[in-house]
């Protein structure tokens, strides 16, 4: 690969990392904003109480409940971010495709909501494979972006992940319905599909897009 091509591929990988980081930081900012508004409201209520206005316990419970919910939400966002960040620790390792899919769907929900598309998980069974987790996340994120771009406003895109029916020890089958994915993937996604030794195709059912992942991808499989 030429230096220029190598740089372009690296930049594309970084762009993916940047997009995910920006989306997560936006979510965290929202969590902080709600906590900040709730804490400010509690402060206002206590100042009014100091001036003699009675405090309503239900109001306090409502505001403190909101703050607690936001802390739980923030905790989940940070846990997802941490899982995502650690996906570059090893080139190849054992992963459960269902868990990776669930993570990327959660991370992409806000991007989809901006286009008025909802992402849902359908049947997801444990699919242990040995693969490159970062490239798998990148591929799934790219596919989700593509699906959202091709989905109509108000639609629901559903994902499933199951072991390959005929030979479960041969890998995993990942499917998507609710949006038309072009038969020819963009070059970046084709590269990731090759890198993961995967196979993408319009599925056997109308409108279903299918990705088949092998049980094992070697350390240097598909490197370009």
């Amino acid at each position: 690969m030429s230096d220029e091509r190598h740089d372009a591929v690296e930049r594309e990988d970084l762009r993916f990392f940047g997009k995910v980081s920006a989306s997560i930081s936006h979510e965290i900012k929202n969590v902080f904003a709600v906590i900040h508004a709730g804490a400010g409201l509690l402060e206002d209520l206590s100042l009014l109480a100091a001036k003699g206005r009675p405090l309503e316990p239900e109001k306090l419970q409502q505001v403190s409940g909101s703050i607690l919910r936001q802390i739980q939400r923030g905790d989940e966002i940070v846990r997802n971010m941490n899982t995502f960040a650690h996906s570059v620790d090893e080139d190849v390792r054992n992963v459960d495709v269902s868990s990776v899919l669930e993570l990327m769907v959660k991370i992409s929900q806000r991007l989809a909501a901006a286009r008025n598309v909802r992402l849902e998980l359908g049947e997801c069974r444990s699919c242990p494979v040995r693969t490159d987790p970062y490239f798998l996340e990148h591929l799934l994120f790219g596919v989700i972006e593509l699906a959202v771009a091709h989905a109509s406003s108000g639609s629901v895109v559903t994902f499933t992940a199951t072991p390959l029916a005929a030979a479960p020890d041969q890998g995993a089958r990942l499917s998507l319905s609710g949006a038309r994915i072009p038969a020819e993937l963009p070059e970046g996604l084709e590269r990731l599909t090759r890198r993961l030794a995967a196979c993408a195709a319009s599925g056997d059912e109308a409108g279903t897009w299918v990705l088949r992942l092998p049980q094992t991808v070697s350390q240097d499989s598909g490197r370009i």
Partner: protein
Amino acid sequence: MRILLVDDEAELVSAMAERLAMRGMEADWAETGEQALEMAEAAQYDVAVLDMKMPRIGGLELRRRLEERSPDMKFIFLSGHGSEEDFRAGSAEAESYLIKPVRIEDLVERIHEAVK
């Protein structure tokens, strides 16, 4: 003075509306652009405080549609990002642009400035 707060984070705008009410402002809130447009049909608002990034109808689009109905309405944008792109668009299209989390004192000041 009547304020309309719009953000898809309902718990954020409801708390902000309550805090503005404690400061003598009549504040209503909506969590979608569609809801905000309906409310603006039913009542006259002096200032609308809009989140820039919302599902379906974003802040910039909502501002345009609200202004069509109420040409005198003033606008303040909220953004969680604080990105260059948001700043440029927000500053150009509204009286003010604030980055979350927003101090209530700053919001009150910007509201007063907007209606001056």
